[in-house]
Structure formats: structure tokens, C-alpha cells
């Protein structure tokens, strides 16, 4: 009796504790959400504040963004297209590599894996100036391609897929070979579906990386109608323009779709991370 009381007691304490932690962590986003209904110049002057004049709340910022701010929506479109392409291409290439590393014995496999780890350690920022020169040479500046190219083969994803595929049953491969499947058929028809959860997890991580990517697109994108959301929104952080309406409401609208996607796929995401595990 005493034991169970103690148990429910600590359950409540822990749950309330986590409630508080969640509240603190979500506070900035809630603050932004509420503030997005405030007149934007007030917001810039006072910051996000506890003392809100609720009578001044209105939806002008959103009306403006839906009716006037044409370029905001082209940034949105660019971000969506770039993220979608990055997810599809990087998942395709990285899963192939990770799978091959896990499932086949071949000469140079270990060397190759070390190479992946090595690339993982080179910060992209160091390559950025020469890469930029390359994009100039290839006449790719100001194109989707320039943004996506360096993201296609992601060493983190290769690493992750390799860990995940190691846990897949090799017996299935042999069975399929006996049935006359080609190696490619085995990969696409049998193994890829089995890697589903890990694909979902990496899709979210890669999508996030691309959706929020900043420095590289900042370098290679030039014209306003090619900007992605982070670049476009950063252009609004200027004291010389009066674009704060778009900035605040626009920021809220960048978070919403990705939160919805996350909630929708949360189950796969956690399952993917969990079953992959990272076995040092």
C-alpha cells in the first residue's frame, strides 16, 4: 500500500516535472505564435514580452503575407522543392552505399568505411570557398542544383544505414537469389522495404538539414526568386526595410508544415532510430 502510494507519488512528480520542462522548451515557440498577432514594429521595439496588450492583437501580419508578399511564397516553394529533391536523392544514394558496406564482402570495404568516417569529420565550411569556385566554373550559381549537389551523399546517413542494414537477415538474400532475383532486385524489392523505418528517420533528419540549411545557399543563391526560406527571411532582418510583418508571420508558417510532418511520422522516426541504434 505504502509502496504503491510512493509509486504514484513519484509518477506525478516526474510527470509534472516533464510538463514544466516541456513548457519551458515550447515557450519560445508559443511566444512567437502569440507575438505574430501583434503589430510587428511593436514587437521589434519591445521584444517578446509577458506584458502583451491583448486588445492590439490582430491578423494583419497574416493577411499581408497571404495577399501581398509574393516572394515569400516563392521562397516557400523553393525550400519545398529543394528539400524534397535532397531527401529523395540523398536517401537513394546513401542507403545504397550503407547497404553495400553492410551486406557484401569486398576488397577495400574497411578502407571505404574509414573514408566515410573521415568525411564525416571534415566540416563542410572548409570546403565551401573552393566548392563555390567550382560552382562558378560549372555555371551552376543561382540554381537548385548548386544547393542540392553537396548534400546528395551524406556521410552521416551512410554511417546510419550501414549500422541499420547490419541487422538485416542475410538469409533473405540467399533465398531471393535462389528464386532468380538479381542483386539489384534484392536491394530494391526486398531490402529497401525492410529498411523502411531507417529511411523515415533519415528522411526527417535530411529534410530538416535541407529545410534549414543556411550558409551554403546563402553563397550560391543570388536572385530573390531563387531564395530558400531561411535566406529570404534573413533578408528581412534589416533595419532599412519595413518587412517585419512578413518576417514574423512568415517564420510561424515555416514551422507549421514541418511540425505536422513530424507528428505524422513520429512513430517511424523513433522506431527507425531505435532499431538502428548506434553500435559505436
Amino acid at each position, binding site marked *: 500500500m505504502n509502496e504503491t502510494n510512493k509509486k504514484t507519488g513519484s509518477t506525478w512528480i516526474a510527470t509534472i516535472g516533464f510538463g514544466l520542462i516541456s513548457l519551458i522548451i515550447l515557450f519560445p515557440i508559443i511566444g512567437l505564435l502569440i507575438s505574430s498577432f501583434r503589430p510587428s514594429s511593436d514587437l521589434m521595439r519591445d521584444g517578446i514580452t509577458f506584458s502583451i496588450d491583448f486588445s492590439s492583437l490582430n491578423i494583419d501580419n497574416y493577411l499581408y503575407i497571404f495577399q501581398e508578399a509574393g516572394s515569400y511564397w516563392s521562397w516557400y516553394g523553393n525550400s519545398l522543392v529543394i528539400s524534397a529533391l535532397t531527401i529523395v536523392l540523398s536517401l537513394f544514394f546513401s542507403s545504397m552505399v550503407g547497404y553495400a558496406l553492410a551486406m557484401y564482402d569486398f576488397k577495400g570495404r574497411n578502407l571505404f568505411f574509414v573514408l566515410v568516417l573521415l568525411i564525416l569529420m571534415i566540416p563542410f565550411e572548409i570546403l565551401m570557398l573552393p566548392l563555390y569556385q567550382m560552382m562558378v566554373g560549372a555555371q551552376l550559381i543561382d540554381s537548385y542544383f548548386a544547393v542540392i549537389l553537396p548534400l546528395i551523399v551524406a556521410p552521416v546517413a551512410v554511417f546510419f544505414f550501414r549500422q541499420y542494414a547490419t541487422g538485416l537477415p542475410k538469409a533473405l538474400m540467399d533465398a531471393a537469389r535462389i528464386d532468380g532475383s538479381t542483386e539489384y532486385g534484392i536491394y530494391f524489392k526486398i531490402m529497401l522495404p525492410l529498411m523502411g523505418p531507417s529511411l523515415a528517420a533519415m528522411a526527417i533528419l535530411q529534410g530538416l538539414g535541407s529545410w534549414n540549411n543556411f550558409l551554403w545557399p546563402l553563397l550560391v543563391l543570388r536572385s530573390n526568386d531563387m531564395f530558400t526560406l531561411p535566406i529570404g527571411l534573413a533578408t528581412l532582418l534589416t*533595419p*532599412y526595410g519595413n518587412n517585419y510583418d512578413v518576417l514574423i508571420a512568415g517564420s510561424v508558417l515555416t514551422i507549421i508544415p514541418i511540425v505536422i510532418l513530424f507528428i505524422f511520422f513520429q512513430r517511424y522516426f523513433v522506431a527507425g532510430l531505435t532499431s538502428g541504434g548506434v553500435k559505436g
Partner: protein
Amino acid sequence: MKKSLLILLLGVLAVVLAACGGGGDDASGEAEEVEVIGEDLEDATELTFWTFVGQHVDLYSDAAERWNEENPDKPIKLVAETYPFEQMHNNLLLAIQSGQGGPDMVDIELGQFPNYLQGDIQLEPMNEYVEPVLDNAVTSRFENYAKDGNYYALPTHVGATVMFYNTEIMDEAGVDIDSINTWDDFVEAGKQVVENTDSVMWNVGTEDWLMDMWPMISQQDSDAFDENGELILDNQTNIDTLQFLQDVIYEHEIAEVAPGGMNQSEEFYGYFSDDGAASILAPLWYMSRFLDSMPDMEGKIAIRPMPAWEEGGKRSAGMGGTGTAVTNQAEDTELAKEFLAYAKLSEEGNTNLWTVLGFDPPRWDTWESEEVQADNKYYDFFGDGIFDMLLEVRDDINTLHFTENTPEVISEFHTNVTQETIRSNTSTPEEALKKAADAVRAEME
């Protein structure tokens, strides 16, 4: 799993479609960061224009409309894009380095300009248009953008630095602003303001030295570099001037650090509108900031020359500035140059600099013209007599000296010097300026 991938793709698609559906027409917005003029004209040559001050676009869109009426044989389609200061200059450098992706015309801030004069210069000389008008203009403003006898950009204004006084506060404090002739007078008046009102006299910025340090040394014939390109940032005049700026805050206690770090920030506009301070030192073009961001101040602001360092000393300096240049990446450089000169350098263009943007035009032969003297919103806001005052201080304006290291000086000043002397009072002005000068000298080799 295939199914959920399909759902993911469908979801993405749905959002794309929603986004496309949501996009309205974009030609109308007042605060739009892209503005297009002449979209409906056939065979129009497209001219892209980058700026970091949204207001400047008005001048060119105005000019583009007139141009298309007057020149139906060579119509233009102007695409004007506004970016934050650093981003625009960095992007322009990248574009110029790489020879692609740049605009046809671009606003370049004076302090950044030397960056674009290195290597093979990628801007087009404008001599054929500039030379004929030099005799009637404040030439120092054109020299700022010249190298080896070539004029690479057209100035936007004289940038005569003046004092904006809040007359309500001054009256409450019992100060007659016409009696403030020297900086000593200014300090005395400041003490009266602090004593009799809830406001301070003035603000020193930390991220915008052309609102205090630079005009105040220029007015004493000093600068960061001398006419031979030698670094004189740490000379005695400059040390004394910085000492003065430190003293108004920490010794006389008549000023405080500008909210937001500079007087061109949203924080500052709110602060000044609430009577936080009694005066602003700024070039005349600061008028447009009042109209746009502090409209409540109408009728309360008086404009006077800067205080001098001694009786009879210089009472202004030409500050800030934006040179508009044509890049060699323009589709039709001749057309771009012709349009730029039309928009900015012609008599009408110069008049528009005043009527549209509230800038003191570089060509003084327009200052007394009818159009310039005619009523407009700036006279309504600040009273008449702006140009009388300008004519009075016209000869006080010194040429500024630039080298390829000017951007480094400015960067050192904003990051280190103001931090140590103005914001935190941890270094003496002499130490801070010597340190900054040494850092820049190391760069100069």
C-alpha cells in the same frame, strides 16, 4: 513502408500546391523587397538593380516610368531588389569575383566601395556623364568613387551632417538651440537638458561611426587615412574626439549609448519617439527616417548645423553615401549607364533626389531651383530653410579619404573600439585607437 513514403511525397506535394495557390500578385506591396517596373512592355531590356535601402527604389522606379514614356524606342524593365546591408555587399563581391550572377546596377555603400576597386575593376566608368557636370557639383562626393581618373559610381547626396533637435525638449530645458555654436556649448546645453527634463541630450552609437566619430573628425580636417593613404586613425585629433564621445557619456553624463547600437534601428526609433533623447547627429538624409519611422515627431524637429570645435570652425561634414554603379555584367552596359545618369545625375534626377528621397543633391545648381524650393513633405515636417543652411555650410565639407583598407578600419572601429570605449569604458581612447590602428597596419603590411 512504401505506402508511407507515398504519403510523405503526397504530403509534400499538397503543401507545394497550397503554397502556389497562396501566392498572390506581388506588384503592389509597399514594403515589397522586389519591385518591377515596365513588366508589361514588349522588347524591354531588363535592368536588375540591387540596393540595401528600400527607399532608394522609389527614385529609380519613378525614373523608369518617365524613361519609358520618353524613350519608347528603348524601353526598360527595371527589377529592383532590396537586401540587408552585409548580405548585399557580400553577394555583390561574390558575383563580381565570379563574373556571374551580379546585377546590372547596384548601390554600393561608400565605406565598402574600396573592396570593388581591387583587381580588374568590374564596374563601368561613368566619365562621359560625370565630367560635364562636375563644375556645378560638390566634387568631393564624386571623388569618393573615383580611381585613376575614372568615376565608377554616382553619389546619392552630399550627406551634409547636421543636428536634429527635439524643440519640445529643448524648450522645456530652457535651451535656445541657435546659441549652440560649439561642442562646449552643446555640453552645457546638455547639462541643462538632463537637469530639467527626463531626457538625455544625445546618443553615441556603437555600430555606425558616421553618426558621430567620422563627421566629428572630418570637421577638424582629420580622417582615418590622409590624402596619401597613410593610416592616421590614431592621431591626436582622433584620440581627443573619441575622448569627447566617451566623456559625454561617462564624465558629463549627458548622453547614453544608442539603443539598438545605432540611431538607424527599430529600437532607437521607438526610444526617440518617446522623448528618450533631445538630439540626433546625422547627415541630412536622415530626414527620411523621421518620415518613415518616427512620424509622430512632425513639427517638433529643428535642423541646425553641427556644433563647431571652436568659434568659426567647420560646421558640417559630408557623410555616408551610396554610389550607384553599373557592373560589366549588365546585358547592355551603355543603356544601363544612360539610364543611371538619367535617373540620378541629370538636373531632373538631382531634383528628384530631393523631392522623392529627401536627399541633398550633389549638384548644387539645383538647390535654388523652383522644384527644389517648392513645398513638399520635408518642408512640412522640418520647416523651411533647409537649403539656406546647406548653402551656408557647403564649403565646410571635406573630401573623405579612402583606401582598400577602409572597410577594415570601419570593422575594427565598430567591433573593438566602440566596445571598449563607448559601451564599456574599459580602455582609454588612446589605447583603443592605437590597438585598432596596429591591427589595420598589420593588414596593410
